[in-house]
């Protein structure tokens, strides 16, 4: 197949990817968009198979069978609540692939005199660095979300200094490669250093900030893929990679805005760094006491309310309570209670995480309220039922300038007549911040697993 025909066929792939993203802007066409993208990917793979430069097939076919089977099984088996870590995992392997391609290209081209032109070697080192960071960073994000390691920020002394020195060293190795050094050990050092940096970079970031991190790493993998395109002089890689790079960056910035924090603050602020005195001041200033309620008390509150707003958070995802939540909501509706759901843009561990879960449970769209609409409704709400949400309803974000989340827009559940918080225990959330909402005289706590509590509530409401 000639280079011209190849590039024209690759153009088909590029167009399908653009269409895929366009179709994703509407729930009705989104699924078709994804399928169109998959077809485009298949076109690219077939076209690549037909290239003259490909002489050896067994590595490719065996590799595809192994990787494809793993991907398909993992993606099929995973529960909806574990989607964030799956996205992190698949993102990481993509970054890893880009880094390995760069390594192979460097290894192949470097020994030939004049084999490496400056632009190619620059692309190689960029793709190797960004791909490695994306790989190891995503693996740490995966481990945190899967709760293989602590979700809380992990901090150690001189962390920032160590990270800065390490990144400087990686960059120096990269510049040496870009400048034409053909030392193989430099590449090994660069890959090892960048991978270590990826780990150290994500470790101090708290679980609550994972949506931003995953989105950013997604953009990184896109950029690494685009750089790979420069190495191989391949348009489809450049355009597709950059599309992802740009869209991922855009999404990251939007999420930062939703939290009213700069991306730098999310990445380097480390929730763990907060002065304990500020948190303590916020909590003790209220001087309140935690009140816990029984299932029957709460069932009465809900059953005789005019308007109930559900406020789901990560706790609902962990407990997989979305179906039970919808069942309880339906039960309340049948009693004439007005029901809606208040969705904070960064509730959960992915942007739009709650939307996906509630969609799975068949909750009607019109009942899902975005933050501003929901906040307008709280003053005329009888009961706000907080299901495993914490930071996104923390009034410290409004009132306590010492709080690390000060300034973040939150759901003002404390405007409601009463607040019921479903929570496993009094331990602070993923971010490790005290929440004065729990001490508010309007608030009662219902301790236990969210799924379990919701089931019991539904039973009690039925008995009213």
């Amino acid at each position: 197949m000639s280079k011209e025909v190849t590039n024209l066929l690759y153009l088909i792939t590029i167009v399908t990817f653009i269409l895929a993203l366009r179709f994703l802007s509407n729930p009705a066409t989104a699924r078709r968009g994804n399928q169109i993208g998959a077809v485009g990917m298949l076109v690219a793979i077939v076209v690549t198979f037909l290239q003259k430069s490909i002489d050896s097939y067994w590595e490719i076919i065996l590799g595809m069978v192994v990787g494809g089977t793993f991907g398909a099984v993992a993606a099929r088996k995973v529960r909806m609540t574990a989607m964030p870590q799956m996205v992190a995992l698949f993102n990481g392997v993509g970054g890893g692939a880009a880094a390995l391609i760069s390594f192979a290209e460097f290894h192949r081209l470097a020994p030939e005199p004049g084999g490496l032109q400056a632009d190619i070697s620059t692309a190689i080192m960029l793709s190797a660095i960004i791909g490695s960071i994306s790989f190891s960073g995503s693996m740490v994000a995966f481990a945190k979300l899967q709760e293989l390691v602590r979700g809380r920020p992990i901090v150690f002394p001189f962390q920032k200094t160590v990270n800065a020195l390490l990144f400087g060293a990686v960059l120096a190795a990269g510049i040496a490669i870009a400048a034409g050094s053909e030392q193989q050990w430099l590449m090994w050092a660069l890959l090892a250093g960048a991978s270590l940096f990826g780990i150290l970079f994500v470790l101090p970031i708290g679980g609550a900030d994972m949506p931003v991190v995953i989105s950013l790493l997604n953009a990184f993998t896109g950029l690494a893929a685009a750089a790979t395109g420069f190495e191989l002089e391949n348009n489809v890689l450049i355009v597709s990679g950059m599309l992802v790079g740009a869209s991922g960056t855009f999404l990251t910035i939007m999420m930062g805005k939703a939290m009213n924090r700069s991306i730098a603050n999310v990445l380097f602020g480390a929730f763990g760094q907060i002065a304990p005195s500020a948190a303590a001041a916020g909590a003790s200033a209220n001087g309140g006491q935690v009140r816990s309620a029984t299932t029957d008390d709460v069932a009465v509150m809900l059953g005789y309310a005019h308007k109930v707003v559900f406020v789901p958070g990560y706790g609902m995802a962990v407990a997989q309570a979305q179906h039970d939540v919808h069942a309880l909501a339906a039960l309340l509706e049948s009693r004439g209670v007005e029901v809606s759901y208040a969705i904070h843009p960064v509730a959960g561990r992915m942007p739009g995480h709650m939307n996906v879960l509630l969609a799975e449970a068949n909750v009607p769209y019109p009942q899902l309220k975005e933050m501003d609409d929901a906040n307008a409704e709280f003053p005329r709400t009888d009961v706000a039922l907080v299901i495993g949400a914490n930071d996104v309803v923390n009034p410290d974000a409004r009132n306590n300038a010492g709080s690390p989340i000060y300034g973040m827009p939150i759901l003002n559940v404390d405007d409601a007549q009463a607040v019921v918080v479903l929570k496993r225990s009094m331990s602070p959330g993923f971010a490790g911040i005290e929440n004065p909402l729990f001490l508010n005289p309007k608030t009662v706590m219902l301790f236990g697993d969210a799924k379990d509590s919701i089931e019991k509530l539904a039973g009690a409401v039925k008995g009213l």
Partner: protein
Amino acid sequence: MSHGLLLTFEVTILVLAIFLGFEVISKVPTLLHTPLMSGTNAIHGIVIVGAMLVAGLDDKDTLTTILGFVAVVLASANVVGGFVVTDRMLEMFKKREKKPEP
């Protein structure tokens, strides 16, 4: 085409792709941010093309063979997993389209 000219073309489409990426994404509603992230995640699986080009080379040494093979494994997992996960998410959004709203 000279190498320099090719490079300028590549940089041109790179810059155009940046603007296209911003443009296309700015229309996506918050409701679909998760599938969007997952969908773009599948799209960067396009690195599989690069992995195939490396793994399919003739006369390569052991290191290149290993690197190429592992790259194909990782990229395939990215492609298949990415599209399947996204499809599963979107399936749920679609299911509700059919159901008439009360």
